[in-house]
């Protein structure tokens, strides 16, 4: 009996297909034995149990566009695309619960009908599954004004590697009823379990947005201005310095977003201009520009991220000659650099990692097509030991994590 036949026999209701139709992010790596698309939390439990009996690893993916190719090992892909739909939206409470495979665009549209939004802006956010980008803790420059994604994930349902169902957190904004096991799940990349539904905090949509640009300067000057804005008396919702932007006729630029009442953003703009002693140009139709910045690094086959204190950004950027600033975007308030390019080379990334670590920062390889994947900055030894112990209580049989790089 083939694996497909065995699975169909054991779990006749679970959608299954062979591994050739793999998610785009997995292409170029080892081929999964099967791709399954369960449609309920209980089916996810059954799939995990079945895979455990078969000695197969389980690789959870959302849309599959932002996962890494698997190097080797026998595994199945568990797609959450069968887990879709909004389970509960309490507009007056500003909380929304959606199944993990629901695209963020669906959630965003539902919120928009009530004048609300969830201020998350990782690359390609609207097409990403909500479970996927939470597992990746994917973030964008709105971090400056609204805080990290992890602060706004109120609850999740998680299936552990051995098939236990855990309801983590809840649907209220403040909740300290026990240790916060939800935190390591956000950004845990599926190592602790398979997220099947998520409750997010929503926000009122800002009354007014203003997008300001400084360009026609060298990249180091733009970077200095961006870092300086991070010390201004008012805090914009995002401050980024980007490599050449199509929407700005190929110019690199410092791009700042302000939210609030019109009178507030008028005053904030004046404060920022005074702080860096330079006028900022207002962009009236900014959606395409913001999309271009947001999605940089989101579609290329190779992508790395650097984190460093904002005051050390200049040191790292000056070491980016071999990587090239053209494919980069810098969140100068968070101290994060995202570089996406199909032609990134391992040696250049190794050098960049050295520069980042030398400046007290770190580098993470987000995605890497090909066999020459560079290493990212590891967790400290003691932290790594605790992380492994933590993984062992969620996935005692190592079902979820035997197959990743």
């Amino acid at each position, binding site marked *: 009996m083939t694996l497909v036949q065995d699975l169909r026999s054991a779990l006749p209701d679970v959608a299954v297909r062979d591994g050739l139709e793999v998610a785009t992010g997995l292409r170029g790596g080892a081929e999964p034995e099967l791709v399954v698309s369960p449609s309920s939390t209980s089916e996810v439990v059954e799939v995990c149990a079945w895979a455990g009996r078969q000695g197969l690893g389980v690789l959870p993916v959302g849309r599959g566009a932002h996962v890494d190719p698997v190097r080797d090992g026998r595994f199945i892909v568990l797609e959450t695309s069968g887990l879709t739909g909004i389970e509960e939206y309490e507009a007056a409470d500003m909380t929304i619960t959606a199944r993990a495979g629901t695209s963020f665009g669906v959630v965003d549209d539902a919120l928009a009908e009530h004048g609300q939004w969830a201020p998350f802006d990782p690359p390609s956010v609207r097409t990403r599954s909500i479970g996927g980008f939470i597992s990746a803790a994917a973030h964008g420059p709105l971090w400056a004004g609204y805080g990290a994604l992890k602060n706004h994930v109120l609850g999740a349902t998680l299936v552990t590697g051995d098939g236990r169902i855990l309801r983590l957190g809840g649907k*209220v904004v403040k909740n*300290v009823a026990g240790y916060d096991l939800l935190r390591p799940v956000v950004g845990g990349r599926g190592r602790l379990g398979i997220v099947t539904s998520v409750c997010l905090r929503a926000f009122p949509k800002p009354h007014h947005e203003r997008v300001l640009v400084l360009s026609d300067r060298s990249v180091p000057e733009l970077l200095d201005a961006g870092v300086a804005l991070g010390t201004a008396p008012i805090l914009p919702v995002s401050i980024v310095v980007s490599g050449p932007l199509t929407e700005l006729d190929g110019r690199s630029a410092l791009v700042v977003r302000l939210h609030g009442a019109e009178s507030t953003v008028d005053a904030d703009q004046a404060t920022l201009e005074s702080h860096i002693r330079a006028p900022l140009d207002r962009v009236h139709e900014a959606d395409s520009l913001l999309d271009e910045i947001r999605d940089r690094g989101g579609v290329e086959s190779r992508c790395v991220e650097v984190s460093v204190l904002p005051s050390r950004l200049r040191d790292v950027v000056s070491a980016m000659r071999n990587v090239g600033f053209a494919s980069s975007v810098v969140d100068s308030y968070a101290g994060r650099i995202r570089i996406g390019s199909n032609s990134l080379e391992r040696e250049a990334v190794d050098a960049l990692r050295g520069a980042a670590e030398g400046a007290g920062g770190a580098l*993470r390889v987000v995605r890497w097509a090909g066999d020459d994947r560079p290493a990212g900055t590891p967790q400290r030894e003691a932290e790594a030991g605790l992380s492994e112990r933590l993984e062992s209580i969620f996935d005692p049989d190592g079902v979820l994590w035997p197959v990743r790089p």
Partner: protein
Amino acid sequence: MTQTLVPTVADRLRAIVGSDHVITQPDRLVAYESDGLTAYRVAPRAVVLPETTEQVSKVLEVLHGEGIDVIPRGAGTGLSGGALPSSDGVIVGTARMNRILSIDDQNRLATVQPGVINARLTKATEPYGLYYAPDPASQSACTLGGNVAENSGGPHCLKYGVTSRYVTGLTVVMADGEVVRFGGAGLEAAAGLDLVGLFVGSEGCFGIATEIEVRLLPKAEGVRTLLGLFDTMAAAGHAVTDIISSGLMPAAVEIVDHATIVAVEASVFAAGYPTDAGAALVIEFDGTEAGLDDDANRAEQCCLAAGAIEVRRAASEEERIGLWKGRKKAFGAMGRIAPDLLVQDATVPRTRLPEVLARITEIGEEYGLNIANVFHAGDGNLHPNILFDRQNQDELERVERASREIMTLCVSVGGTITGEHGVGIDKRGYMPLVHNEVELEMLRRARWVFDPGGNLNPGKVVQ
């Protein structure tokens, strides 16, 4: 019966921290018998007060080697009994670890020892135009270490979020004395799970944080504070919902009920609230000066539309303090009404507040208890305050039964048993209301990950 510390162990601890900083005399241990939850009292075997990470490490190494339980303690202002001693345990207090180690205004970070008082950090960062956002009601006394242990909130967390949003890195001494560094600003891209996020709120069960790196925010340019007075709590609740759903983003929205208003006005903290008001709503906006009047005007309209009998607006800092006084001094005012006060803590979806508050009033009547409500209305975080006398055993039992009913009520509408005070000893029995046995077992295992021997703050959170 409290056990005494073996002399040789006491001597080893004195050799580490100095003889003045190991307390074993019964009359001095009395002060450590409870934290802010005074319904329970147990004398510890001893109290040790180290000054550095190295001393904490050595102290824990000794106690771990002797198999002695450790109860970490900050300022002892916690309200869930998280620092309640066990009779065979030793308190490791952070009172002497009160140094601000660095303020990095360029990167808006500060690193502090755990015994630094919350409000002192904000004071120290003021010259840089910065402040530390989480502001628990006890911020003039509570410590950053305690805030980390409890993931503390505060009135302004509606807009700014709770402690976990601001902690970027930790130095932690584990149960066996090992010193471990978690996270750190600039290291977000490093591999691994979010152990900082998991440690915050672990209530002293995972380790003792000895250095805490936190993010600071720029101090707001301006502030507007309103006091809305209502005939009924329901009307105040509707005003809250209208304000939040109108797209406004207040920094704080706080409610005090009629019983609290009466208590405050009868005390030395009298704030000038009318005693015939059914509820008072304190609303605050902060940010860029230019937009604040618009925000305040819109909030005032929401209050009036919901039936406010009066809306006052502070015209000066002095008036602002006055408007806040009835809220901030509520707990102190209640102290004169009854010998003991149980400050409960639960969170419900904001829209369920009116029905939950009405039912809490009924529960108070059914059990013959005086319950006053002061709470963070903007995020649905309730603080029903139950007045009682712990010498009255019958009343104490009624308090416990009423508390359970309130917790059950809050959970039944989609809420939880604690929003910011933590589980400690007080809420441990309610944990099955929000977690099934599988989830409780995961919490036990999480504790094992950090403290396999179970020596750190045993008996707290989950058994």
